[in-house]
Every structure is written in structure tokens, then in C-alpha cells.
């Protein structure tokens, strides 16, 4: 099967090509689009690429961190200033996949993938998207809800605020194969503490719905409280609320509903 590959020097030209041909797909690291081509997806007729250095830029020096959409997980792991993102980056693939897969592509990775996006959702990231005419910043939650309608736009970067400390941001991926494997479920928690109490808790779950979602009931159970055993138990028992997991080869929907609270409790308790 032959497809047309359009390569552009800068991201805005690539975004223009995507907006003028809604069936075109953007090729980042290749782990999603090339895989679809290898599987014989005949709907792919045009691939768009950009060789724009801006897409691989990392700005991690200040409190606000920005990662170009083309930044690979290996690059994230090589940046000492991005230590808070090392656990999610390390949980993805083997070394070759981490050398190829990108932060931007992960936003589109279907279950049981998309682990890095779970971390970004907990961190309330912003996604910078370039349409045909203009660029805009979209909260990641809104981006994920409209992910299927994002054809015609190009993700330029994601940004988030650095968590206050190692205790404030936690991540856990449950996989059957270690150290590499698709997720049974993925959890991330951002727990800013103000005056000894949690203020602005965000819990994100992967593989518990068609896209990554927030566990809002668990967040409510944490909000304004100290992270003690009773609070953790309340959050854990609320974790399943609002989820709609599916069956796949790695686990059934029933199993996912059963374990999500268990793993949220372990995550919040700091257990291995």
C-alpha cells in the first residue's frame, strides 16, 4: 500500500496541511501511525510530518514545564529537571519504544496505552494545539474529551506546573508483564498540601474509560482533608465511581473495577 508523505520544515505548515485534509494523519514517533499502516489500515492515504526543532524543545528550568509534542520518553528520562515525570516515562515500552514514542503521540494512544497522559491529566496540563489558522491552549481534560474530533489540528506542546515535591505527585501503573507491558490500569495523583490539608487534589485513571479520566469522587473525598487512613479509605472506596472500563486481553472490566480502589489506596498510602 502506498501512502503520500508530506514533510514540512515547520509545524504551522504541517498544521495547515492537516487542516486542509481531514483524513491526513500526523506522524510523530511512529509507534501509532506506522503500527496502523503495518496492520493494513487502508484509511490512511496521507501522512504529514514536520521537522521543526520547536517540537522537540524542553523547557524545564522554571516552575512551569513545557514539553514539545515531539519530545520522546527517552529525552524526558534524560532530563534531570523532569524527575517528577520519570516514573510515567519509564513505565512505557522498552528502550526502543521510549526512543521513538512522543509526549504528543501519547495523547492519542488508546487503551491499554497512554500512560504518560494519565500523569499529565493529574497534573492539569495544558495542550497547545495549532489549527489551520490559529493556535490555542486547551486544558488536557477538555482535549481528551474531544480527542476524536482533533483531526485537522496539530499538537505543538504540553505544559504543566511542577509539583511542589515528590510526595505531591504519585504515579502507579499496573501491568501483568514487568518491566514492560500494556496497562491493566494506570493511576496518577496530584495532592498539593496547604496548611496540612489537601487543596486541589487531582486523581487521574487510565484504562478505566475510553479515554483517561479523573476520579472526581475520590478527589472530593480527599479535598480539604489531611492524608490520613480514614481519608485514604474514603477516596479508595470512591475510586470506581464514574468509571466505565472495558474488557480486554489484559483484564476484564469487572477486574478493573475491583482493583482500582485497592491500587488508589496503595498509591495514596505510599505502598509499593
Amino acid at each position: 500500500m502506498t501512502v503520500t508523505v508530506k514533510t514540512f520544515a515547520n509545524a504551522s505548515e504541517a498544521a495547515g496541511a492537516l487542516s486542509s485534509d481531514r483524513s491526513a494523519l500526523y506522524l510523530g514517533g511512529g509507534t501509532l501511525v506506522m503500527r496502523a499502516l503495518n496492520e493494513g489500515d487502508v484509511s490512511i492515504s496521507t501522512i504529514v510530518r514536520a521537522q521543526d526543532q520547536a517540537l522537540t524543545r524542553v523547557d524545564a528550568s522554571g516552575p512551569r514545564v513545557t514539553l514539545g509534542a515531539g519530545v520522546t520518553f527517552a529525552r524526558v528520562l534524560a532530563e534531570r529537571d523532569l524527575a517528577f515525570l520519570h516514573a510515567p516515562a519509564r513505565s512505557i515500552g522498552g528502550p526502543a519504544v521510549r526512543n521513538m514514542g512522543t509526549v504528543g503521540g501519547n495523547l492519542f494512544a488508546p487503551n491499554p496505552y497512554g500512560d504518560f497522559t494519565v500523569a499529565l491529566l493529574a497534573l492539569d496540563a495544558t495542550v497547545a494545539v495549532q489549527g489551520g489558522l490559529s493556535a490555542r491552549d486547551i486544558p488536557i481534560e477538555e482535549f481528551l474529551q474531544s480527542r476524536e474530533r482533533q483531526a485537522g489540528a496539530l499538537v505543538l506542546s504540553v505544559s504543566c506546573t511542577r509539583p511542589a515535591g515528590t510526595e505531591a505527585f504519585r504515579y502507579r501503573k499496573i501491568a501483568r508483564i514487568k518491566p514492560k507491558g500494556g496497562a491493566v490500569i494506570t493511576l496518577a495523583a496530584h495532592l498539593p498540601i496547604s496548611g496540612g490539608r489537601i487543596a486541589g487534589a487531582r486523581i487521574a485513571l487510565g484504562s478505566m474509560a475510553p479515554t483517561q479520566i479523573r476520579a472526581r469522587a475520590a478527589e472530593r473525598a480527599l479535598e480539604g482533608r489531611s492524608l490520613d487512613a480514614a481519608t485514604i479509605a474514603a477516596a479508595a472506596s470512591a475510586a470506581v465511581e464514574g468509571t466505565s472500563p472495558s474488557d480486554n486481553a489484559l483484564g476484564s472490566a469487572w477486574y478493573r473495577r475491583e482493583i482500582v480502589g485497592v491500587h488508589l489506596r496503595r498509591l495514596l498510602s505510599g505502598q509499593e
Partner: protein
Amino acid sequence: MSKIPLQFRHNGRDVAIFVDGGTNLLVALRELIGDMTPKFGCGQGGCGTCSVLIDGELHLSCLTLAETVAGRSVETLDGMKQGPNLHPLQRAFADNFAAQCGYCTPGMLMAAKALLDRNPSPSRADVIEAISGNICRCTGYEPIINAILAAAGGRASA
């Protein structure tokens, strides 16, 4: 549809080929250059047997659009031996019975080379991590891990 001209370095030699749009690097290597050492396994990035080094970095050739390696250096298992002599990793794989059917071996060796090129004295955990993207279904991982450690400095044997 016109073909796309593509030039890159393949195991230290300049090569020039024409590829169809959408051709992956594995197909380009095997069918257009005749280097049969990288294997087709899953086509999904799950097995690692198509692994090659692109500018020294481990990549999956089946998920690499061929034209993205223009002007870059691609190393495969075919370029690993040193003249008539096996590379120390190949020697260690043979000595440690680290290849049974051999289908995963090209990818295992490239993943091992990527590791030893940047970390000549890896720990056992480093080795396990380095080959975590490569699936073996018959030899078993222990002989492979031992071979890589042996090549790194004779610290382990079968």
C-alpha cells in the same frame, strides 16, 4: 505514485534506494537492500526483533518510516561482526547458549549493543531493562542476560 529517493549509511556504507511512500525501514532493509538480519515479528512494536540502531539509538525498524533515516546512520546485526570475527556479544551468545530458534537474536543483540555502547559495565537490572522490549519465546531470558553480562566483562556465565 512516484518513488521517493532515499540515501543513508547502512553499516558504514552509503546506500541509495527508491522507496514507496509509507514504506517502513524494515521492508527497505530486507527487500530493497537485502539485509535479512532484522526480522519481522509483530509489526506493532511489541516484540523487538526488528530492532536496529539509528545514529546509535535503538529503534524499531518496522515502526520507522524509511524516509526518516535520510542522511542518518543505520546499524543492523549484519554490521556487527568485525571482519571474519564475531563481535564479543555474538561470541558470548554462542558460548552461553543464548540462541535457540534464533528469531529474537538479531533484536536482542542490537538491544544489547545499544546498552553496552553507552554503559560498558551494566548491572543485571540494567541488562533486564535493556532487553525489556525484546520478546524471546523459546531460549528463555536467563541465558541471554548471562551472555550480555559475560560480554560486558565476564562477570557471569551460563
